[in-house]
């Protein structure tokens, strides 16, 4: 698929655009603004940008206090630092207060590449979803990220947005006018198996679907860019209409989207399921492409999982 900008780059662009529209938007970063791309906002609105230094816990608490006084703060860092170092603050000062704080964790997944395990946010979605009242978004491409940032800003309540480091396949070549929180998006029609993907795995799923069409398998691809609240209706309809589901994501298995989808399927319409994810392990240094191959997150891996569930129907 054709590559577009990285979702983190679109995040920075979206913030900069939002700054002009919403004077109450302020942005915080923890000394990674050149990487998270929040610098794009800082360059345009230096008085509303706060580099908090390398202190994620304090940054989240400060965001809470700003939100309590009517600001709409976006706090950015790498996904693993923001969620893991800021988790108790996200729980107490944001979730337990119902505070209107937006967070963006960039460089999520193993596709950050050579920096290795310490920088790879692979548990962030499990932890973000564990925060009561949080909306959790995983935009798949640049257009969707721009729409998601806007939707997050207009949504009343805490939001976590996941962004990636590498260029992302273009899922929406004509752009995406609106991001609807709580609604899944079918990006390819199909009748035999459904692949529910997020992030880079949406593109992998589309590639897999095209390859499988040649084998006579009709694969539906759903982009579940909002994983909390989860679009249970779309999942149930997919289970009923295609009779098998594969969930594909750049995340560990525990607390994964796959587990959340399986709960919906089990309760409403049990069908064979397959799971493409990192499993229960840490990755390593390597190029993003090498890592996606070694840890089983390519279009080939998705296709293999689809063939396996199709046989179990």
């Amino acid at each position, binding site marked *: 698929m054709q590559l577009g900008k990285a979702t983190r780059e679109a995040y920075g662009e979206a913030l900069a655009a939002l700054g002009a529209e919403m004077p109450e938007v302020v942005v915080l970063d923890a000394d990674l603004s050149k990487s998270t791309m929040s610098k794009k906002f800082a360059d345009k609105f230096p008085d509303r940008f706060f580099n908090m230094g390398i202190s994620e816990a304090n*940054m989240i608490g400060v965001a809470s206090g700003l939100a309590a006084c009517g600001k709409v703060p976006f706090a950015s860092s790498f996904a693993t630092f923001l969620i893991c170092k800021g988790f108790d603050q996200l729980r107490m000062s944001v979730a337990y207060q119902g505070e209107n704080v937006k967070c963006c964790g960039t460089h999520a997944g193993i596709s950050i590449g050579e920096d290795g395990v310490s920088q790879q946010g692979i548990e962030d979605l499990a932890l973000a979803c564990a925060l009561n009242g949080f909306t959790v978004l995983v935009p798949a491409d640049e257009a969707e990220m721009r729409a998601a940032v806007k939707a997050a800003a207009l949504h009343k309540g805490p939001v976590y947005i996941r962004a990636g480091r590498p260029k992302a396949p273009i899922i929406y070549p004509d752009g995406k006018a609106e991001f609807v929180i709580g609604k899944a998006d079918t990006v390819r029609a199909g009748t035999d198996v459904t692949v529910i993907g997020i992030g880079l795995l949406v593109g992998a799923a589309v590639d897999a679907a095209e390859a499988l069409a040649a084998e006579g398998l009709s694969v539906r691809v759903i982009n579940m860019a909002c994983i909390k609240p989860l679009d249970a209706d779309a999942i149930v309809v997919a289970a009923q209409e295609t009779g098998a589901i594969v969930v594909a994501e750049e995340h560990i298995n525990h607390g994964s989207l796959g587990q959340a989808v399986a709960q919906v399927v089990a309760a409403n319409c049990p069908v064979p399921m397959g799971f493409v994810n990192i499993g229960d392990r840490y990755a390593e240094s390597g190029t993003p492409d090498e890592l996606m191959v070694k840890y089983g997150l390519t279009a080939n891996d998705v296709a293999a999982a689809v063939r396996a569930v199709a046989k179990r129907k």
Partner: protein
Amino acid sequence: MTVQHELPLAALVDKARVLRRHVVEMITAAKSGHPGGSLSAADLLAALYFGGVLRHDPARPHDPDRDRFIMSKGHAVPVLYAALAEAGYFPVEQLATLRKLNSPLQGHPSKVDFPIMEASTGSLGMGLSVGIGMAMAGKLNAKDYKVYVMLGDGESEEGQVWEAAMSAAARKLDNLVMILDFNKFQLDGSIADILDWTPVPEKWAAFGWHVIEVDGHDMADILRGFAEARTVTGKPVAFIAHTIKGAGVSFIAGNNDWHGRAPSADECAKALAELA
């Protein structure tokens, strides 16, 4: 907003006594809670809410121009509830529901359950960061309110406190006052034995704060300190109040067994007799 409670000195001393009575009665009725750290802060809370320190109006608890007070050492929330009830934010009778099912008076402050709380706290070390955000918002919005955050000395062992200390000083937040209830004890024993982080005033000064030290049980000294705090510009204020854990009740004061246990009915009666 203009409404302030400003009682004369003798009445403030008496108000602190009333707050202590509420604390003892509430925790006795709840059968659990933290008397030591609530009693040590009673004189400070009396000064804040009734001594003209906080600009606040019980009829307009969410006035955007109000001063903010955050109880970061959330286990001491009974004395905050007592002050708010005495000030007229809610009926004094409601204090008896502390820690009971369906009461907004949670065991530690909950902004969702009880929206007159400025922050949800109780996991230690978090309140100062939230206060910084409020102080920054005040500067951004050209508001002249002040933000007061009460920390415990045990709580100050948390790393987030020192992230916040650096942050507030770097931003020159002279609309922020950190009040340290320096009662020298934490759950497991004395600060000196557990994690001796002295010298305390020197640490805050080194982090770039204007340090004010007071006797946290001498009302005149407390008021002097808060008056000085109002004159400070260009720096946040570290208001270090030397206190005695459990102050005001002879058999609780200085006895760390009372960090987190409720008085029996007999003990409650004895304490109230002392606080009569």
